[in-house]
């Protein structure tokens, strides 16, 4: 089966170039970077180079980079590691952020508008006396981009440090907004699973896992050298490719969106808001998202209803509910998310099968 993969916000294939860079660390350069002997120092050099490269890409100092096991750990470390008393976040953050924020003594979730945009006035009111604000750069389900310059200005005025979950934004928009800490994941940008980073500027962090001097004591444990090399290669590659990839994916996404909107009863989430180039979240009235997915799968098209983390649950998306969707409409939502490997032909195929899939799903919903 030549399936069309349109679930890039769940994960992306590992790029061959990234894999090629990782290969030495999976073979001859296997030693523990903490070992003082020559093989250990060779492994250490790989980690150091990767750190410098990530720092250059993000415009920070190498010592500000902490390599982690992925986006979820980065979020947990960025939020809980700062030991916040009161944390302000949005209602539509990734579960990794919401899960971490829920452990703070006080957590305020700022609502979003029906457009999917952040309620900046509510954010401004919530910020006083907060010890941390955590806001995502772009939403994983709808692709809606939050205005981080304005968020950062509000945080600055209130004297609150800003953590940004940029896991879904990376590679799809420039990471040129201000932050005090930022979470990234490798496998969303054609890097390896099991690798991520947290960059931290001028904020004191307590490590979540103890037991070694690694990452300046902020993240103990033998470094995943291949994963770290993969993270840096993927980030570098994504930031280089982004200016060209963004318009190409946007055109493909817009084509798919136009086809979806021709179907009666289609609602595109965040249509009026600014969105990352690859994401289309569309709800079809009178449909079960799960039925749509199954029907699309039969057509060889891989999509999801929302975040992979909640995949398999039949609960409507909390992100769409926060935007004021009814449970019924939210249940009819599916997410298409594109990546660099998608072709015009693939999108044309998706456009062709979508109307039939929706009408069949509606048929099964009524019976």
């Amino acid at each position, binding site marked *: 089966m030549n399936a069309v993969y349109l679930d890039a916000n769940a994960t992306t294939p590992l790029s061959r170039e990234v894999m090629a860079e990782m290969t030495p660390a999976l073979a001859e350069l*296997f*030693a523990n970077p903490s070992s003082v002997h020559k093989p250990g120092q060779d492994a250490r050099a790989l980690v150091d180079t990767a750190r410098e490269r990530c720092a250059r890409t993000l415009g920070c100092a190498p010592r500000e980079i902490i390599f982690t*096991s992925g986006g979820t750990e980065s979020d947990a470390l960025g939020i809980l590691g700062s030991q916040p008393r009161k944390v302000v976040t949005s209602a539509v953050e990734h579960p990794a952020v919401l899960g971490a924020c829920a452990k703070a003594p006080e957590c305020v979730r700022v609502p979003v508008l029906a457009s999917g945009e952040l309620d900046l006035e509510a954010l401004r009111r919530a910020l006083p006396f907060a010890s941390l604000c955590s806001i995502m750069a772009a939403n994983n389900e709808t692709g809606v981009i939050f205005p981080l310059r304005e968020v950062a200005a509000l945080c600055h005025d209130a004297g609150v440090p800003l953590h940004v979950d940029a896991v879904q934004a990376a590679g799809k928009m420039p990471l040129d907004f201000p932050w005090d800490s930022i979470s990234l994941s490798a496998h969303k940008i054609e890097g390896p699973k099991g690798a991520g980073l947290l960059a931290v500027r001028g904020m004191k962090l307590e490590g979540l896992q103890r*037991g070694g001097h690694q990452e300046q004591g902020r993240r103990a*444990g033998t470094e995943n050298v291949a994963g770290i090399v993969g993270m840096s290669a993927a980030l570098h590659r994504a930031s280089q490719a982004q200016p060209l990839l963004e318009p190409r994916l946007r055109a493909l996404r817009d084509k798919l969106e136009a086809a979806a909107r021709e179907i009666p009863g289609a609602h595109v989430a965040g249509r009026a808001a600014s969105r990352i180039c690859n994401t289309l979240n569309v709800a079809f009235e009178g449909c079960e998202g799960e039925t749509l997915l199954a029907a699309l799968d039969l057509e060889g098209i891989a999509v*999801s209803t929302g975040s992979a983390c909640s995949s398999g649950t039949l609960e409507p998306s909390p992100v769409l509910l926060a935007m004021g969707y009814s449970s019924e409409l939210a249940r009819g939502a599916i997410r298409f998310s594109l990546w660099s490997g998608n072709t015009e032909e693939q999108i044309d195929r998706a456009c062709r099968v979508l109307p039939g899939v929706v009408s069949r799903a509606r048929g099964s919903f009524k019976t």
Partner: protein
Amino acid sequence: MTPKLPIYMDNNATTPLDPRVLEAMMPYLTTEFGNAASRSHPFGWKAEEAVDKAREQIGALIGASEKEIVFTSGATESINLALKGVAEFYKDKGNHVITVRTEHKATLDTAKRLERQGCEVTYLDTDKFGLISAEQLRAAITDKTILVSVMLANNEIGSVQPIGELGAVCREKGVLFHCDAVQGVGKVAFDVEKDKVDLASLSGHKIYGPKGIGALYVRRKPRVRIAPIIDGGGHERGMRSGTLNVPGIAGFGKAAELCQQLLPEESHRTYTLRRRLQDYLFSHLDHLELNGHPEHRLPGNLNVSFAYVEGEALMMAIKNVAVSSGSACTSASLEPSYVLRACGVSEDLAHTSIRFGIGRFNTEDEVDFVKKYVVDQVKRLREMSPLYEMAKEGIDLSKIEWAAH
């Protein structure tokens, strides 16, 4: 024939990836790239199948069911999760934790953190081999004790604790038992049922699997509960959230399967090689001390103190062999090994200790090269050592009053 240099003989720090493991990982590094949590398409299903298979392989190695395996980013995370997770979840039951002075830093640093959060921690002293006894553990358990954490095998000196006897005491007393099995699993017998272990931490990269992947075994019958450290998404039945590292997991599973298949033969082989090295060193050099238990130890681990040689100088002199003067985690520091100190080794002698970790890919030729090389270099260094001359003449150096300077 001189083997290819440098010779890697530091398999307690990390092991090379077995080519068969890399082969098992390759599909998941290329075409089968799905997110194991994606339930709506074959990309996700294939990833989930790989994860399920690995759970079975790892479970089989330690006598656990696949449902009892929680994947983590490595053993440090597993140990943190076990200790903090139990302390948090059972805080109404008690606040006393028992561990041992010679445990890995991941355990000791986490225990220190628990102390700061109001736990009481007992650090058991060991005998000169780094071992504790069941009686000693029994005496330390109080009605406030919720957790005992003891490693299967020590990472520096290789001593293997009597885990089954310790587990029996914990079971009898109704106390949870966590075992840091990182260094021992796949090398010595370990079975969570026979050894009555409730939680066990495992690492991929110590058993010829990839770095960045580990597991925590969490017993289901009777059910052991832990509070998660990393929350959000609900992966791994809520105990550890985050997208699963599918290639890492597939590799870890294959590594576990290989260990299980190879265990008796490989243990024998690495034991034979280690004895070859040990016997040669001890028959060609005097004033050596074996650290760790002579019998109850990892088959491939040899930790020796070369008296009257400066440890760092020796490391430099034998730079064609990648060995370590302690654990990799503390090797950057110039402090003498706390493990050796806890075993009663003097500071001077601790400074002269070298750990050889013989593993799957070491050959007899390599061992023969290393044994002669080390003997030559130690002799050379000792010829330059006035202390060694004095010791040979029978002067007791500990009785000398050195001039102050």
